[in-house]
C-alpha cells in the first residue's frame, strides 16, 4: 500500500474544507472494511483518507418525527444493538447481522455498505426495501436522495467519495400497521457473500396491503426491487395464492448471473420465489 495521509476532521465543515483542499485526492473513510483491501490491491487509489469517526453527529442514531436516522459513522453492530431497530425494524437488525461476522460489523457502516453498491450488499437490500433516503453533502450543497438512485452499476455508486459525503441515512417509520422480513442464503452461515438475499416491507391498512417493498440481490447488476410483485400485492391480503403469485412475479423480474463460486443463474432463479415467500410471510406475520 502506498503512503497515505489520514486526516481526521472534527465536523462536517472540516470535511468540506478537505474536499476543497484536496480535490480528487481524498477519499472518505468510514469502517474501512472494504476500502482498505481495495487500496492494498490497488483497485482504488487515495493518497488522502478523510476519516469521519471524529464527527459527533455522524455517530448518532436518532428517531425524529417519523424517521429513524442513522449517521454515517454508525456501525452495523451499533444498529444491531439498538432496541428501537430490533423492535420496529427487525429486518434491519437481521440484515446487519448478516454482514460478514461480528468483528466486521464492529467496524463496517451501513452508509459505507451502500456506497460500495454491490448487487447483494445486505445493507443495500435492506435499505431498498425500507425506502431509505440519504443526505448527501458536498461543496455544491446538500440534498436528500432516495436510495434507489444511488446505484449506477455493479460496484459503482453515484457518490464521488472525494467530494461527496453521505452524512446519514433515514428510514421512514410508517404510521400504519407494518412489518418487515429478511431472508438470506449462503454456502455457510457466516463470513460469506450471499447466494441470494431478500428484504421485504409491508404496510397494512384495514387488513390489506397498502404498500409493499421487495428488494432482492444479486439478481441484477444493482440491488433490485421486484416492482411487479410489489404492485400485485397492493390491496390484497396475503394468502397462499397471492404469496405464490407475487413470488413468481419476483422470479420473472429477476435476472441473476452465474457465479462459479456461489451459484448458477438457474439455481438462483429457482430459489428467488422461496426467499420472497418466506420474507413476505415473516413481514405479514410481524405486521399483525
Amino acid at each position, binding site marked *: 500500500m502506498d503512503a497515505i495521509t489520514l486526516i481526521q476532521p472534527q465536523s462536517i465543515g472540516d470535511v468540506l474544507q478537505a474536499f476543497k483542499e484536496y480535490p480528487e485526492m481524498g477519499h472518505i473513510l468510514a469502517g474501512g472494511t472494504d476500502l482498505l483491501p481495495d487500496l492494498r490491491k490497488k483497485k482504488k487509489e487515495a493518497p488522502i483518507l478523510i*476519516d469521519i469517526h471524529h464527527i459527533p453527529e455522524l455517530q448518532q442514531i436518532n428517531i425524529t418525527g417519523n424517521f429513524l436516522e442513522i449517521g454515517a459513522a454508525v456501525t452495523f453492530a451499533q444498529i444491531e444493538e439498538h432496541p428501537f431497530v430490533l423492535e420496529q425494524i427487525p429486518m434491519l437488525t437481521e440484515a446487519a447481522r448478516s454482514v460478514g461476522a461480528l*468483528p466486521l460489523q464492529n467496524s463496517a457502516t451501513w452508509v459505507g455498505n451502500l456506497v460500495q453498491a454491490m448487487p447483494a450488499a445486505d445493507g443495500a437490500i435492506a435499505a431498498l426495501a425500507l425506502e431509505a433516503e440519504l443526505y448527501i453533502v458536498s461543496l455544491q450543497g446538500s440534498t436528500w436522495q432516495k436510495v434507489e438512485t444511488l446505484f449506477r452499476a455493479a460496484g459503482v455508486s453515484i457518490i464521488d467519495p472525494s467530494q461527496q459525503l453521505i452524512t446519514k441515512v433515514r428510514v421512514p417509520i410508517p404510521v400504519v400497521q407494518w412489518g418487515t422480513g429478511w431472508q438470506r442464503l449462503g*454456502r*455457510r452461515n*457466516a*463470513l460469506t457473500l450471499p447466494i441470494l438475499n431478500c428484504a421485504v416491507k409491508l404496510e397494512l391498512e384495514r387488513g390489506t396491503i397498502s404498500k409493499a417493498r421487495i428488494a432482492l440481490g444479486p439478481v441484477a447488476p444493482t440491488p433490485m426491487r421486484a416492482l411487479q410483485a410489489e404492485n400485485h400485492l397492493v390491496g390484497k391480503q396475503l394468502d397462499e395464492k397471492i404469496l405464490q403469485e407475487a413470488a413468481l412475479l419476483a422470479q420473472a423480474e429477476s435476472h441473476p448471473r452465474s457465479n462459479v*463460486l456461489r451459484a448458477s443463474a438457474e439455481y438462483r432463479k429457482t430459489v428467488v420465489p422461496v426467499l420472497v415467500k418466506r420474507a413476505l410471510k415473516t413481514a405479514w406475520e410481524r405486521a399483525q
Partner: protein
Amino acid sequence: MNLTGTKQGCDYEGECGACTVLLDGKAIRSCLTPIANVEGREVLTIEGVSDGEILHPLQQAFIETGAVQCGFCTPGMILSALALLEQTPNPNSQQISQALEGNLCRCTGYVRIAQAVEQAAAQLRGEVSSPANQSTANLQPLGGNGLRSDSMEKVTGKAKYAEDYRFPHALQIKVGRSPYFHARIIKLDTEKAQKIPGVVKIITSADIPGENGFEIYSVAEPVLTKLGDNVRMLAAPIFLVVAGSAEIAEEALQAVDCEFQPLPHTFNMDEALSEHFPPIIGDSNILSSFEVKHGNLEGAFSNSEVVLETHYETAFLEHAALEREALVGYIDEEGRITVVGGNHQPHNQQRYIANALGMPIEKVRVITPYTGGSFGGKQDPWPFIAVALAVYHTHQPVRLIYSRQESFDASPKRHPYSVHYQMGASKNGKLSGVKVRINANTGGYDSGGYYIPNYALTAAGGAYRWQAVDGLARSVYTNGPKSGQFRGFGTSQSTFALECALDELSQKLEVDPLEFRLQNCLQDGQISFLGYPLAETLGYQNVLEEMKPYYKQFIRQTEEVNQQNSQSPLRQGVGLAGMWYRFGKGGSLRVEAHSELALDGHIVIYASAPDYGQGTQTAISQIAAETLGIKRDLVEFINADTAKVPNSDIQGASRALYFVGGAVHQTITTLKKAIFSVASELIDAPVETLTLEDAWVRMIEEPNRKVSLAAVAEEFERIGKSRRVREWFDLTDRVPLNQQVEYAPFFVTGAQLAEVQVDLETGFTQVLRMVAVHDVGKAANPTDAAGQIEGAMVMGLGAALMEEFIPGVTSGFSSYQIPTFGAMPEIKVILVEVPSRYGPFGVKGLGEAAMLPSTPAIINGICRTIGKRIYSIPATPEKVLKAILQG
C-alpha cells in the same frame, strides 16, 4: 513492540480473524483498521489479557478443555470470546456462535472452544470456583486430563511461529510463478531486475548447484522450471527474487522478462487420458497405477441378487491451515544452512535440501518451530529448498512468507477422484464381489501422487469381507494444481465413495445399513480386501456394536421430528458411514529415539515427531512419563531439530505416536534400567526393590532409602557411563508377516453418524448432531484424541458441504469456504480401546482416520433425507436442490 500474539492468516482481507484485537472492548480486525484510527483508544491484544503470570479464566479454560491445538487462531478466538463475556456474562449458544463465527479455526472443529467459553463464563459469574493457576507440566502421564505442555505459550501469544523469528535486515524472498496452466518458457531474462537497487540475487534453475528436483518425493518436478521447459500448472515456480524488502522484491518480480508460449491445458482426467490429448510429461498421462485382484469376480456377481453399478467424484481440496507457508533461513553458529519452518519430517527436508544444494547433509539443518496447522500441506519440500537456495547464495538471513493467495495457488491439494464401482450382494445382505476403477487427479506434478493408487485402492475395499476383488487405481496428470499430502492421504476420497455405495446397496437390498456393515465386517485375523491378513488388531465390529444404540436413537428421533413438522420444508435424516485407515505409511519399521538423564536429574527425550497442532509434543512426553512412572514435569522433549535429534523417520499417516512413541518407550525403558542399576549401587539395594518417584529413586519398602536423579547423573559422569541412550522401535521381524507387502497392514477403524437437516426448498443443509466411534487402541490422551476427532469431523463436514478448489478461480478464504463456528454440529465422541499388539501401551494411529467417515456419513444423511442420491462433493445447496427436483 515485538509482540507476537496477533497473527495473520489472510491477505489483509478480514477473512480469517487471526488478527482480532479489541478496540475499546470491541472485537475488530486489526488488518482492516487504519493505525491512525486507534489513536487515543484502548487496544487490547492477547499479551494484555493475562494479569502477569495469572491467566485470565478464558485462557485457563482454553487450556483445560483442550481448545488449543495449533494455537494460531487462539489469540483472536480468546479476544473475541473476551469481548462477548464482558458484554454478555451469561451467553447462550447462539450468542457464542455469533461472537466467534468471524474467527476461523481449522484444527478443533470449534467444539472445545465453545466448551471453554462456557466454562470461563461460569467461572467469571462466580458459579464455579476458579481452580488454582496450574502449571501444564505437572501432570499425569498417560490417560487422565491430558493438558498440553505447550498451550500456556499459545494462549498468551508467546509461542514463536516461524514468522515470529525476527532478524534485523532479513532479506525477503518472492517467487516468480507461471501465469499459465500449461506453457513453455520461451524467454527468461533477469538482467534488468537484477540491477534494481536492493535486489540481492535472482535465482533461476541455473543457480541450483545440486539436483533441480526432490529425489523420490516427486518424480519429474523441478524446483525451478528452466528456460525452454514447460510449466504444468498455474503458479509453478520459475525463479526466486531475494531482496532487501518485500516491496523491492515485488518490483523485481515484475521486472523479470519472462515470456511464455501457452499450451493446451485440461483439468479433466478423461480428457487427459484421451488419445488426442498429448502427454503433459513423459510418455503418458498416467503417472502410476496399482492393482488388487483375487477371487472369481464373475462367479461372485452371477451369484449375487443385486449388483450395483455407481460412480462418485470428489473435488480438489485445500488444507487451509491458518498459518500460511512461512519459513526463515540463516546460517547457524556452526555454519550450517538452517531453515526454520513447519514440516512433517525435518530429516527428510534436510536431505532434500542437501540434494538440491549438492552439499553434505551435515551442512544443512532444519528446525521445526511452533506450526500453525499443516494437515499434510507443510510436507511439501519446495519452500524449504527455496529458502535454503536463498541462504546458500546470499549468506544472509532470509524470510519466505506466502501470501494466502500464493498458499492457495501453489500448495498441494487433495487429489480429486473419479471412482467407479460395481459391487454385488446376496439377498440376505452378504457382500460378494467388488470391481472398482479409480482415477486420481495428481495435477501438473507428482508431489506424492505416485503413491496415491495404492492408498486409493486400499481404502476402496474397507474393513469388509469380499469374496472376489478386481481393483485398479491410477494417478493421472492434468494441468490442475499439484495434488499432494493431505490428512487421510488418498483414502478419504475412496472412503467417501465406498461408504456411499454401500449405503446405496443397503437401500437396494432394503436392509439396515448398520446391520449390513456388521454382517460383512472384517474380523481380526481374517483375509482382508488386500488379499492377506492384517498385522494389527482390528476393532471394527466393536465400533459398529458401540454405534448401534445411537443409530437407533437418531433414527427414532428424526422420524418423530419429521412427523411433527410434516408441513415444514425442513426435513431431517440420518446417515451412517464406517472406515478403515492404514496408519504407518510406507515409512521405516525401525525408528530411532534417544533419551538422556540430564545433570540436574530431569529426563530429556530426543526424537522427531513434529507437532503442528495435533499434540505429539505432549503425547510423546506422556509415553515417556508413563514408562518412567513419573509426572510429566520431569520430562523435556527436544523435538524435530536435525542438529539435535535422531531421524525418527517420516511423520505421516498418523504414525507418530505408534512408531516414535514406541522408540521413546524403548529408549526410556533402557535408560530407566541404567538409572536403577547405578542407583542400586548408590543406595545398596537390589534393582527390583527400586521405584522412581518424582526426581528420586527410592526403595519401595524403605522410602527413606533414596537417591536423587541428579546424584545418579553425577555418578554416571564419575564412572564414565553415557547418560544418553540410543534405542530403536523395530517391527521388521514381526511384519510383513507371511506376505511381502509394500505397506505394513496396520489399520484403525471407526464409524460416524450424522443427523442432518435439509431445506427441501433451497437445498441448504445443516448438520445437527454427529456421533463418532473410533478404535484408537489405548488413548494416550483422551482429551486430545477427542479433540483430533472433532476437528477431523468438521473438516470432513467442510468437504461434504462447501469446500472446493477451482483452479484459477479460488484464491483465498473468501472463495474457499471452510466451516465457521455456526456450522459445528453437536458432537459426541466415543473411544473404543482395542489395544494394539505392538504399539507402546497399546496405542494406534488416529489423527487422520477420523475425517474419513464424516463426509460419507453426512452425504448419506442428506440422501436418506431427500430420497435421492448425491454422487459428488461438495453437496452445495444448488447440488442438493437439483437432486431433490429431478424426477
